[in-house]
């Protein structure tokens, strides 16, 4: 009975440990893309993995960084351990402590501080900074592995070698090195593994266009993890497993039994026996290292000579460009595009501000552009190089003046309005005013945006004030109004407005025009209107940062984006309104081309205003008031 319990316990633990990996392996052979369904066995993901250049490149970078960092760290760390070992007791304790700290330190602190250091030293973030960072955090692991082995070495053995005429280096190689070799190789393997799966530090120290597997997978998560990643993870898991098995199953050279066998073999044949473990650590690993480095050198060398300095580094929102557009640009101009994505303005801003990475063009939102101009982070665009600017509608240029008063810094890329989406089956009356959101008839059928500026915009506009007001009295009024509205509101949400409205779960919802185009297609009963009191209009526009290294290429790229056929492609991919009038006319579907939702008339647009950057104090007031509303 006890035996059975023991066995069950062990099986349970093994199950808990390996269930996730087993799931992953199974999914890598699943022909259905769905994670919940088994669609039959397939090797397609493996073959498409090897055809996916981006993943293979990231995989290669990961391997190269891990091998190089581990090798260099092993060298430095071993020398350090030898040095520390030779120190006096007090100094040794201090230094061991100092070298241990980076291991205990939080990774994010390490990542940020390394990034700051690189910026201060004016090292451009890229492959080399990732490598330097990895070497830095690998060294303590090597020291940790080598130092105890160093302590076990017999100083007399080293001295005996010297005594017999060996030079210090030869004596070290023949006596100490074989003794500490297990520590060195476990230090190397540990460093290699640490580098292989590091995410946080890599994320902070990487530059545009360079990705390791972890950062690549992270950026893929937004779009949903592809089954190729399962296949890749399976391959990684199996290779690590095989390596471990090889090392552990090989006979250890130190056991007396093996030594006896060894001497018998030596007596019989005059040759030493060759050990599997020695083969793996002594031959296989360095061999692999050399092969990968050579291949990588040729690969990278080829790539950089092809691209050379003729490149443009683009920093854009996720899913905010048609990938074909990038390929087409590269083909037409021969300029290599290095493309990076961000999720929010607030993630993008500090990167530009710190100057850690020099981007050629970035696509921030209106208020952020204002902030960047105020902080002198942008340079004027030379519009002589962007003749296609003529395709951008004048009304949008004018609206942009709210955040770029002279129209010298930005080129509008996407825009939209905020308005009311309503279900024509549930709302009989014509919707023209924000007032309807305070109509008790629609109690529990109203959806509000769960966002401070959007919520206050609705109330302020209804009251006839500016959505950018900092007047305390006006804000108090708006707050009271929002509190009064609260009993009628079904929910304060962001993304769910779309789904709830499609599912006829609410009659009225505050929503952005880009979403409205999509919902109207899914549920023909839904209509979108920008109320007469006016609303918010937003812009995402291209700008060129002050430290852009390839300004001319950036202008070529922006000119390309302003070409009507390209703008149309992007509009169809992104579905947000394009300010490119020429592209608007190219839209084939008349329902969309003439849609008041996608392209409201100038009069509507003129009633709307963009959000301005209000400064930290005003932001705090807004947040405090919003908290009062939500907690009332």
């Amino acid at each position, binding site marked *: 009975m006890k035996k059975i319990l023991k066995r069950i316990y062990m099986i349970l633990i093994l199950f808990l440990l390996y269930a996730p990996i087993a799931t992953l392996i199974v999914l890598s052979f699943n022909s259905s893309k769905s994670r919940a369904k088994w669609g039959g066995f397939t090797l397609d993901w493996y073959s498409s993995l090897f055809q996916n250049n981006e993943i293979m490149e990231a995989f290669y970078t990961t391997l190269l960084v891990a091998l190089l960092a581990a090798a260099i760290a092993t060298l430095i760390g071993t020398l350090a351990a030898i040095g520390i070992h030779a120190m006096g007791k007090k100094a040794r304790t201090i230094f061991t402590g100092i070298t241990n700290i980076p291991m205990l330190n939080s990774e994010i602190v390490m990542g940020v501080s390394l990034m700051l250091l690189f910026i201060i030293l004016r090292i451009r973030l890229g492959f080399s900074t990732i490598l330097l960072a990895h070497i830095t955090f690998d060294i303590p692991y090597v020291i940790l592995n080598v130092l105890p082995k160093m302590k076990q070495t017999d100083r*007399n*053995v080293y001295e*005996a070698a*010297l005594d*017999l*005429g060996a030079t210090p280096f030869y004596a070290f190689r023949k006596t100490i090195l*074989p003794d500490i070799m297990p520590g060195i190789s476990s230090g190397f393997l540990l460093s290699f593994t640490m580098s292989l799966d590091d995410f946080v530090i890599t994320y902070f120290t990487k530059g545009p266009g360079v990705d390791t597997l972890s950062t690549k997978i992270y950026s893929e998560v937004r779009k949903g993890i592809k089954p190729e990643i399962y296949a890749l993870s399976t391959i990684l898991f199996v290779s690590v497993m095989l390596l471990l098995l090889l090392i552990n199953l090989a006979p250890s050279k130190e056991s007396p039994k093996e030594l006896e066998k060894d001497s018998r073999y030596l*007596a019989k044949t005059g040759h030493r026996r060759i050990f599997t473990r020695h083969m793996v650590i002594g031959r296989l690993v360095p061999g692999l290292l050399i092969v990968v480095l050579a291949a990588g050198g040729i690969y990278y060398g080829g790539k950089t000579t092809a691209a050379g300095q003729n490149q443009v580094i683009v920093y854009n929102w996720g899913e905010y460009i048609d990938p074909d557009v990038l390929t087409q640009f590269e083909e037409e101009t021969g300029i290599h595009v290095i493309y990076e994505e961000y999720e929010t303005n607030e993630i993008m801003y500090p990167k530009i501000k710190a100057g850690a990475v020099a981007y050629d063009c970035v696509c921030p939102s209106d208020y952020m552009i204002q902030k960047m101009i105020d902080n002198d982070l942008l340079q004027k665009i030379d519009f002589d190089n962007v003749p296609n600017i003529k395709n951008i509608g004048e009304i949008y240029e004018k609206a942009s003046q709210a955040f770029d008063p002279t129209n010298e810094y930005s080129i509008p890329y996407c825009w939209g309005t905020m308005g009311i989406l309503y279900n024509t089956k549930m709302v009989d009356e014509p919707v023209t005013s924000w007032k309807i959101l305070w109509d008790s008839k629609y109690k529990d059928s109203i959806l509000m945006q769960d966002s401070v500026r959007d919520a206050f915009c609705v109330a302020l506009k209804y009251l006839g004030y500016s959505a950018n007001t900092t007047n305390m009295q006006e804000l108090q009024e708006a707050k009271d109004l929002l509190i009064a509205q609260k009993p009628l509101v079904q929910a304060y949400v962001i993304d769910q407005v779309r789904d709830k409205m499609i599912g006829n779960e609410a009659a009225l919802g505050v929503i952005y025009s880009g979403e409205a185009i999509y919902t109207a297609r899914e549920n023909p009963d839904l209509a979108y209107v920008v109320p007469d009191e006016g609303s918010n209009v937003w812009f995402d526009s291209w700008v060129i940062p002050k430290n852009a290294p390839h300004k001319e290429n950036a202008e070529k790229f922006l000119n390309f984006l302003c070409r009507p056929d390209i703008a149309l492609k992007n509009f169809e991919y992104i579905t947000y309104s394009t300010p490119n009038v020429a592209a608007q006319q190219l839209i084939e579907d008349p329902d969309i081309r003439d849609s008041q939702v996608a392209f409201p008339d100038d009069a509507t647009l003129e009633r709307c205003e963009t959000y301005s950057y209000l400064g930290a104090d005003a932001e705090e007031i807004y947040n405090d008031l919003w908290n009062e509303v939500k907690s009332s």
Partner: protein
Amino acid sequence: MKNKLIDLVNITKSYDGVTILDDLNLYIRENEFLTLLGPSGCGKTTTLRIMGGFEHPDSGKVLFDGKDITELPPNKRQLNTVFQKYALFPHMSVAENIAFGLKIRNKPQAYINDKIRYALKLVNMDGAENRYPASLSGGQQQRVAIARAIVNEPKVLLLDEPLGALDLKLRQDMQYELMRLKNELGITFVYVTHDQEEALTMSDTIVVMNQGYIQQVGTPEDIYNEPQNAFVADFIGDSNILDGRMIQDKLVEILGVKFPCVDTGFGENRPVDVVIRPEDVELVKPEDGQLTGRVTSLIFKGVHYEMEVRANGFDWLVHSTRLQEVGSEVGITVDPFNIQIMNKPESTDEEAVPVGE
């Protein structure tokens, strides 16, 4: 007189502010078996390591055959060391261990093979070429370590407590082996040990050290029979060391009793240290003794009995082949030749007397 092969001149060495050797002077003659003897921490190993080149003296010079080798690293010195814990190369076979030094000197393989066979034969380890150190016993490992050193034909072999880790029987066997080797090879041995018996057995010359100072240099007989101070007397064999007063030449008062002796020149009425070896204390009938006492303990030691006799307030250590029961009353006499008189040190500092040349 053979010439000086190694000459240590005014050597001083300290670690972390603690002085280990203070102005030490010592020479080793060619073909001599010299032993550095002393308790642990006396500086004997440091002295050896300075000769080997593993330690650098703070001041002073090391001369080898008249040439200054103080700055020469160990791999350039014409001497080889046998370490206390053998220090064999664990990853190499016995043959590879022995060939190590020869390979560095680029000797031809045939010569190396001959040497390996010769050296193994010399240390009675024929046929052990392909064994590994871990599969050898302590004594065998030590023999290999010695073989590894001597194949290089050094002028001097330095041995740092080479038998310290072996058991008694093996140690005694190895002592004879070493003496035989020394005679066959005809090279100089510098031997470090804390075992006075080992030193007495093997050496031509013994250097007794304590607290970084040389206490006495001499032949084993000199050291044993004529210790120059209480430390040497105490360290070399068991001794009865007593406070005495020199009444006049050839007469010393111990424990209130006047003993005739053979020493002269200590002045009159001077306090002195008196050394009497336990085997020189004769037990006689109470009425025949110079003083009388009672046996307080008795241990059978094989060749003799070891007894303690309390007489005149002092516990006398006595070695005798004749048994006296515990509690029995005995008389004690000492032959005048067996009474060793030494000057009392005037302060504790002087207890360690540097012996200059």
